[in-house]
């Protein structure tokens, strides 16, 4: 039977992996809804409101899953990792408290107005509510990423009697890896949403939906992805350089470099063997890793053997990194290929629709792979150089953790299936809808004739 440390790690990983799927969507989807709503406010064109109405439902569902899995997280700190708060509670506490106070309440309170308030409040108040909900989700990410980055690159504190005490809050929040990680996370959210929106819109069109809304959302999503995916590659590179400076052992594991070497190759494929401390079946491009990481063909990269006993497991980082980068490259290619066709012909081929549909959840894969790389890359530490994971774990009977883990896992699998099925069900339902809804007709009667004409001509 697994010990309580391993079980708690698996349980926490399961919880946080399940949780991150949903905020990754809501952070950027919130801003996309603000964009749809602003376009509607500006043009009065109902297609923007239709796009808003479809995606706000997705937002609501996603948000609910994020909230309930997030509540679970706040309990797990105490139940499974008591040593975490006992050691760094003085740092983590205020950051978590600020997240709840400035972000949770904002988004949760105004969500109701955003979802159901369109006919109850003036238009600008509804737009403002949408904006504040989006702001709330982003602020939530800000505080959480600040804490997470601090765990990687702690700063602005001192240890007194084994407990961390804050000395400089600005240094704690804006710790060395924070700006890079925050930008990388926001961008990953944007890309996840681009491909989700593109994928579901493509699915609707593939199912014969000839209405305007899916076409408009498909275009918005793919054009954004064409710009954002390469930007993400650039930010990721900066983030990698920052990691090389502060956590060289993580980069060595990602690149599969055992001995410190000059002019290290970029390994496209290999199977790292931790017992023999070497790679098998390695295929690489000479000197490229050195060039990327040090911007010098013969730059020196520290190898894992310099960190014996203090470096993370190599295989998950090595493969996780390749999954993330591979998915990212695929995103760039698909986004450019489809955007070019949309730009020239204003429509996609059946093949392209299928490819975009296949990429619907590609953002999730890249996001999870990226998080595994960075989080496993911090091991054996929970807080780099301050607290080891094994020293923070609970002494609860492992049977109890096994039981709760089994329950969590089965619920998560069921919910994930239900979530994905419901998204596609919602898409199929909107295929059957008429272009103009009865509510809209009602609404049109009250609005000037000018916007009526726009509707007809569009």
């Amino acid at each position, binding site marked *: 039977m697994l010990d309580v440390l391993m079980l708690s790690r698996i349980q926490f990983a399961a919880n946080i992996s399940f949780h991150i799927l949903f905020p990754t969507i809501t952070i950027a989807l919130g801003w996309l809804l603000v964009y749809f709503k602003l376009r509607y406010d500006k043009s009065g064109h109902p297609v923007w409101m239709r796009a808003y*109405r479809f995606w*706000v*439902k997705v937002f*609501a*569902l996603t*948000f*609910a*899953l994020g*909230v*309930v*899995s*997030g*509540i*679970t997280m*706040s*309990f797990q*700190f*105490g*139940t499974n990792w008591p040593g975490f*708060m*006992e050691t760094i*509670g*003085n*740092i*983590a*506490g*205020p950051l*978590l*408290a600020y997240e*709840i*106070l400035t972000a*949770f*309440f904002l988004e*949760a*309170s*105004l*969500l*109701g*107005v955003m*979802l*159901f*308030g*369109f006919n*109850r*409040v003036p238009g600008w108040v509804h737009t403002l509510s949408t904006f*504040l909900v989006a702001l709330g989700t982003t602020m939530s990410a800000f505080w959480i990423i600040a804490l997470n980055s601090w765990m990687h690159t702690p700063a602005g504190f001192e240890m007194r009697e084994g407990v961390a*005490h*804050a000395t400089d*809050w600005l240094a704690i929040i804006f710790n060395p890896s924070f700006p890079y990680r925050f930008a990388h996370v926001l961008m990953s959210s944007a890309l996840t949403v681009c491909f989700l929106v593109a994928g579901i819109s493509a699915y609707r069109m593939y199912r014969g939906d000839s209405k305007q809304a899916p076409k408009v959302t498909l275009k918005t999503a793919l054009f954004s992805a064409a710009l954002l995916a390469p930007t993400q590659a650039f930010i990721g590179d900066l983030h990698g350089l920052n990691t090389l400076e502060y956590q060289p052992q993580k980069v060595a594991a990602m690149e599969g470099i055992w001995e410190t070497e000059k002019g290290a190759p970029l390994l496209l494929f290999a199977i790292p063997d931790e017992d023999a401390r070497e790679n098998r079946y390695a295929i690489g491009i000479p000197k490229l890793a050195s060039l990327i990481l040090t911007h010098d063909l013969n730059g020196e990269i520290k190898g894992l053997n310099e960190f014996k006993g203090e470096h993370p497991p190599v295989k998950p980082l090595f493969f996780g990194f390749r999954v993330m980068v591979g998915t990212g490259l695929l995103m760039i290619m698909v986004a450019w290929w489809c955007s070019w066709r949309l730009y020239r012909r204003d429509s996609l081929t059946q093949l392209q629709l299928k490819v975009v549909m296949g990429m619907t959840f590609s953002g999730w894969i890249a996001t999870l792979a990226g998080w595994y790389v960075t989080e496993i890359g911090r091991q054996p530490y929970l807080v780099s150089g301050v607290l080891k994971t094994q020293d923070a774990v609970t002494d*609860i009977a492992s049977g*109890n953790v096994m*039981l*709760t883990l089994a*329950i969590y896992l089965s*619920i998560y699998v069921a*919910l994930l299936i*239900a979530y994905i099925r*419901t998204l596609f*069900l919602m898409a199929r339902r909107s295929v059957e809808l008429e272009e103009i809804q009865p*509510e809209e007709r009602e609404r049109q009667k009250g609005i000037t004739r000018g916007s009526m004409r726009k509707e007809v001509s569009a």
Partner: protein
Amino acid sequence: MIDWLFADENLPLVFAVLMALSVILYAVLDGYDLGVGLLLPMDNAEQRDSAIASIGPFWDANETWLVLAIGLLLVAFPAAHSEILHALYLPATFMLIGLILRGVAFDFRAKVSVTQKRQWDYLFKLGSLIATLTQGFVLGMFVMGFEYTVGGVFFSILSAFGVATAYALIGSTWLIMKSEGELHRRALRWAKYSGAIAFAGILAVCFINPLINSFVLERWTTIPMAYFIGAIPLLCFSMFAVGYQVLKRLPLEGHRGDWVPFLMTVVVFLCCFAGLALSFYPYVVPGQLTIYETASAPESLRIMLVGALLVLPMIAGYTVFAYTTFRGKTTALRYY
């Protein structure tokens, strides 16, 4: 005033008050929506829709008070957080599972076909029941000092049903305020039943609590605390007496006064909570750990207090805004 709040020696008390505030707000706010979940009429789809529509715009924000309460326990009293959640590992997990099930059922039900909708409604009801019972169990465990003895578990199980009744009461009075027609008539009936049981339950706790915890008995019988402790049950029980008369007379012409039972239930909740808080101060784990022993470092508490003082008025502001936007009798919820 500000100096007093920020003084090292007062910070634990200030945070205990903040935490108490979030707990009672949670009990009232999520209490009514959990209560509506418990009472969800499975025999009538239309009534289910309007019961759920009455809590639709609010439940997310209501649950956030639980996150804040647990968050404050975690960040302001970390040693107590570990101790309590260690003792409550399984009940807390089941509560979370209940909250997960009802939270997602709420959103899934609106987006699936009619046959599946009924299954999600069952899940919503079940999740509400699990969350409610475990919260009651946790409350009972708190009163018993987190000891898994036969008596402790028995009391906690009773407490689980007590809290379920209390939530049913506040849920039914919420529905009295927000609904019309047949659902309104049923809610009046539910309020009468659950009110009667809640009354008996509170009476029982008033006798049992001082018998279990000797320091409670001492406090209840010492002047001047005894006056307060005496006034609280008096206020509480008069609410039940008057409340019963009010329920008998409702509904009035044009639904006047439909809000009265809900308000009275809130007063009952406040009384019960004040009674508990005054009995157990300064303990955060009764008989074992006080808020002063378990508080975080003052410099960390201070920076959180700055945030709390700045942000709490804003939270109050947009909560009021949300409730005014959706005031009055519930109409069908539309994403439009």
